[in-house]
């Protein structure tokens, strides 16, 4: 019989502690599949965050160094600069990236560090029990915005990917989601491209993944997937936001004399 599905080599086989319907487990698996496909398990170093994914090193079978909350891109910078031929990625939540670690993330992007950032946007602080995040939607009820996020008091949801795309240091930014098989495949393609770009020395990539958190959204997994379609992706539109190599290739093509 032909084996068509199995555990990626880059995963340890431990059972995920993530809640049912959580996006973290899907994203983990996609990253591991990409690492396998690119055959970079032995040279990849991952930097998991403080957040629900803090135990990522129990699942990935690659070298991993945990970062303090928000500091992943700084730690990743240190590793990548010391070992430029290794593949380095940080894995960050929205609180991690867009609140406490916004400076480290923004400046790693601005320096054009040749690393990949996987940005898990679930619009809440998952690990600490569902508090408001910098990416919570206006009106979204959380444990610290019980009447719903209100811009006058709480500010606006931060469009991380759009903002980062303005930095000349960033090479590739795409926003994806994992709420349907088709979207999962697109997400995997984006992750793969970001790692390939890093291998090619192209520079900083950020893959934003709109990720369901049924537990803190107080929804079923199915309703969570629907909420991403109906609400979250309206605030955070899906798609490629910046792809420097692709844009350059397109320009080259357009400039080619037509015969």
């Amino acid at each position, binding site marked *: 019989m032909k084996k068509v599905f199995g555990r990626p080599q880059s995963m340890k086989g431990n059972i995920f502690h993530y809640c049912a319907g959580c996006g973290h487990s899907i994203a983990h698996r996609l990253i591991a599949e990409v690492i396998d496909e690119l055959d970079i398990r032995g040279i990849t*170093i991952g930097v998991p965050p403080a957040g629900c994914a803090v135990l990522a090193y129990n699942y990935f079978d690659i070298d991993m160094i945990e970062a303090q909350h928000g500091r992943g891109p*700084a730690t990743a910078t240190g590793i990548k600069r010391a070992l430029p031929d290794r593949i380095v990625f940080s894995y960050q939540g929205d609180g991690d990236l867009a609140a406490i670690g916004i400076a480290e993330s923004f400046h790693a992007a601005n320096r054009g560090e040749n690393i990949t950032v996987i940005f898990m946007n679930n619009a809440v602080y998952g690990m600490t029990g569902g508090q408001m995040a910098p990416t919570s939607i206006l009106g979204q009820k959380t444990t610290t915005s019980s009447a719903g996020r209100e811009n006058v008091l709480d500010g606006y949801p931060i469009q991380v990917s759009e903002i980062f795309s303005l930095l000349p240091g960033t090479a590739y930014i795409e926003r994806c989601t994992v709420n349907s098989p088709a979207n999962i495949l697109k997400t995997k393609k984006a992750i793969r491209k970001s790692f390939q770009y890093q291998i090619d020395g192209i520079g900083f990539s950020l893959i934003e993944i709109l990720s369901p958190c049924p537990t803190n959204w107080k929804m079923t997994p199915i309703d969570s997937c629907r909420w991403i379609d109906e609400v979250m992706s309206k605030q955070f539109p899906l798609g490629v936001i910046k792809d420097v190599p692709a844009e350059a290739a397109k320009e080259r093509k357009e400039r080619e004399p037509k015969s």
Partner: protein
Amino acid sequence: MNKVLMQGNKIIAEAAIRAGCLFYAGYPITPQNEIPEYMSERLRQVKGGVFVQSESEIAAIHMVIGASAAGARSMTSSSSPGISLKQEGISSLAACELPAVIVNMMRGGPGLGNICPAQGDYFQATRGGGHGDYRVIVLGPDSAQELADLTMDAFELADRYRTPVMILADGMMGQMMEPVVFKKPKPRDYPESFIMKGAGAGKSKIIRGLILDPLEMEEHNWRLHRKYELIAQKETRHELYKADDAEIIIVAYGTGARIAEGAIKRLREAGLRAGLFRPISLWPFPTNELRDLAKKVENFLVFEMSTGQMVEDVRLAIQGRARIGFHGRPGGVVPTPIELANVIGRLYDRKEGIIDRIV
């Protein structure tokens, strides 16, 4: 090797380069800016050398964590307010048992304070500084030569015990120029197995501070504690100056000790038998050595450029066996040796005066 005249901050940077430091990250703050400036030049000339001007002191220390894990001898430097920001990362270095050297060129505090030499960060440095149950090896140089020697030693100690080591000096040490001879550094001896460089074909590695099981975390704490006990046994350093026949011993470190030496010279000229006990390792503190001295000397005077921090370690060491006075000038004031000599002269002439000032 030739003697050269150099500024304190540059001496530290040069010593780090010679010790094989390959990674430096830092954020500008006076009075230590010559360190990043010098490192930015020199690391460019070294094969594999990396200099990053970070966006903050927090970022710098977390870059150091990454570089250290990846096997590079790594350093960051700052002055008091910036060192406060680094504490999160220093705690992580201790937890994850990663070597690194951190330089604190102390300035007047608290808060933004000023940019004058001070010694108000002694507690922060010697008590760990960040959260959790850990210690940092702290070395307090008092001369250009020691800035060089102790910086090199700091890298070695950091590797040997896989722990952060701090050079605790102040703006005066950083700015002054003195002749220095750079000793030949020992080649690095750091096992490959500690380095995170990708799993290769082998087993993957984890570096983490998070240990959710309290019993496991307790054991981790005790293991660290046993390491710190070993460090305390083996790595204590101090120096005596004119202590043999002294009737009063000044206890001071760093710039404070230089001032004390000047005061002692003057006191001796006036016929007063004063001497100096200078802790070089501030953690581990030379407790036993000081206690031994208290067997034959009755009067001690602690001098610090603070309102009194090291004096607590002196009290813990002496345990009531002798009288302990204190003279402090916090906030960036650097007193003259004459001022200190006068203070000591007064106490010495009216020995009961010391009792009045027991703190």
